């Protein structure tokens, strides 16, 4: 082999492990999901055969799965709104330089770095009906008359409290993304505004907000994908109970408890398509506003 041939082949050699990995373990499986969603796949009850939209029909007639779509929409709405609003607020609070910002940032990132399972176990203890700190603290400030069972009774309260656990974990992502955008704003813009007599609220609305919109779009999409796929927190805090169940939990139950792989494939495909569509929509919407601004 001569040197120029080796040099020409070099890029292919460098990317070949990547192509093998992503090809075999991302593209092939995604294609497999797409195809098998239209087949009846029951490992304990063969044969596998083509059933067209049969799996999807079955999914839409199952009341638990139908409800879990609604639940997931609520998880996403709460997760996106809270993590982006908190993320923006915290980023703005940290915008001003301070000796402690490095330390504060390290602490803020901590919830993101810890396993969601461990966090959910901790929060389940916080929410504990008998010995939980939430009951005790709210009771001691007279916010509640008696101790409550927080999870598993009221559908929307259960979803809200589970999603707060996820918001606690993913808000640091929004903080970092939005803070980076805030830091790239020229300080002279704020100085000019201050000379014109603008207050902090006006400066945030007129200067910061338009310039951090792309970052908010990215934070929105990250929160959207994560909350649309919420599993760990629901599994730990709510088990496989139908009340408050998420669509990812139903995919798991359908596939690995009911052993209806075809149904699982169909649900996976729907979640994937929903994720892609919503991400694109959020990016298009928020990015277009930037151009208009």
């Amino acid at each position, binding site marked *: 082999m001569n040197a120029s041939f080796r040099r020409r082949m070099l890029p292919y050699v460098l*990317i070949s492990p990547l192509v093998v990995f992503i090809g075999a373990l*991302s593209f092939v499986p995604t294609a497999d999901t797409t195809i098998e969603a239209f087949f009846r796949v029951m490992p304990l009850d063969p044969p596998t055969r083509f059933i067209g939209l049969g799996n999807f029909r079955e999914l839409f007639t199952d009341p638990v799965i139908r409800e879990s779509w609604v639940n997931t929409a609520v998880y996403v709405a709460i997760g996106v709104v809270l993590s982006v609003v908190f993320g923006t607020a915290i980023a703005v609070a940290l915008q001003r330089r*301070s000796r402690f910002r490095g330390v504060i940032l390290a*602490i803020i990132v901590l919830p993101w770095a810890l396993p969601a*399972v461990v966090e959910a176990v901790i929060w389940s203890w916080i929410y504990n009906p008998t010995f939980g700190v939430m009951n005790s603290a709210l009771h001691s400030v007279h916010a509640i008359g008696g101790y409550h069972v927080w999870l598993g009774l009221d559908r929307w309260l259960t979803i809200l409290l589970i999603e707060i656990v996820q918001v606690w974990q993913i808000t640091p992502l929004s903080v*970092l993304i939005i*803070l980076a955008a805030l830091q790239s704003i020229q300080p002279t813009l704020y100085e000019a505004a201050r000379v014109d007599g603008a207050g902090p609220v006006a400066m945030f609305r007129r200067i910061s907000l338009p310039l951090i919109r792309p970052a908010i779009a990215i934070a929105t999409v990250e929160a959207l994908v994560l909350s649309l*796929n919420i599993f760990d927190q629901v599994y730990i805090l709510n088990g496989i109970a139908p009340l408050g169940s998420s669509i990812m939990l139903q995919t798991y139950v359908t596939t690995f408890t009911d052993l209806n792989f075809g149904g699982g494939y169909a649900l996976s495909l729907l979640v994937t398509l929903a994720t892609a569509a919503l991400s694109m929509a959020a990016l298009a919407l928020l990015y277009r506003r930037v151009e208009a601004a």
Partner: protein
Amino acid sequence: MADAGTHERTARAVTRVTEGPAGRALSGRPARALGRIVALAVILLWSLFPIYWALNTSLSTLSGSDSTPVHYFPSPLTATSYRQALGIGGAGAGISSQLWRSLLNSAIESGAAMVLTVVIAIFAAYAFARLRFRFKRTIFVSVLATLMLPAYATLIPLYRIMASLGLVNTYIAVILVYVSGFLPLAIWILYNYFNTIPPELEEAAAVDGAGPVRALLRVVIPVAAPGIAAAAIITFLLAWAQFLFPLILTTDISTQPVTVIVAALNQQRIVPFTLLMACGVIAAAIPGILALVLNRYIVQGITAGSIK
């Protein structure tokens, strides 16, 4: 795809976030300064309280933790739960042997996934950032597109692939799945980092007779060390936190990571919360300490990795 100018801005923004100068945005009168201190206190309380609460309970006695109203400090303070969880002094043999083994499994699976992901990502990201080849853009965009895919799009087929290869309940299955899942993000982080390095550095090496491979190994990798560290630590943390994939890919303690064991202990309902919190703190200790010590790289990696 972001152009070179965006990358430069990103890199500058990242530097500012991590090193902290120059953000004199809002003016500081005393009332506002007080407001800022209150805001920071709320932020820190929100971030730290659940972690503090786990520590508090794990250091309490059973009767101290099961009290109404709750104690906000451990009274009396005891390390009994940690002794039980870690099997120090022969206490709690069943749980401690499971916990130790699962920590080892987590370390092997996350460590191997990190090394493989970073090595493969360095070569690929270098090729994407510096070399010319056919279908480069198509391959690059398709790899990054999988970032938008929920990991679970591949859950069932990956399980069936591993089952058909007889790899269920092996380290290999878990590691392969992690690598395929984390490669796109690692490549994106490294690609952006390589683009902030002036090509003149390698050109100088080329003048000295070094080929692209030597330039990569001798010039680019040392200069890109912070970016590589960011990709490595983020991959490790994501791998350590995995739950759903190991839940289906591992079936017993020979391969189950610590997340699966903590979830199982939680499900048993007979493990007291003091011991459960101690196990949780132990499971979160390694990522927690890494996150605090290597925070700079995490901030840099997340920031660079999210600017699309």
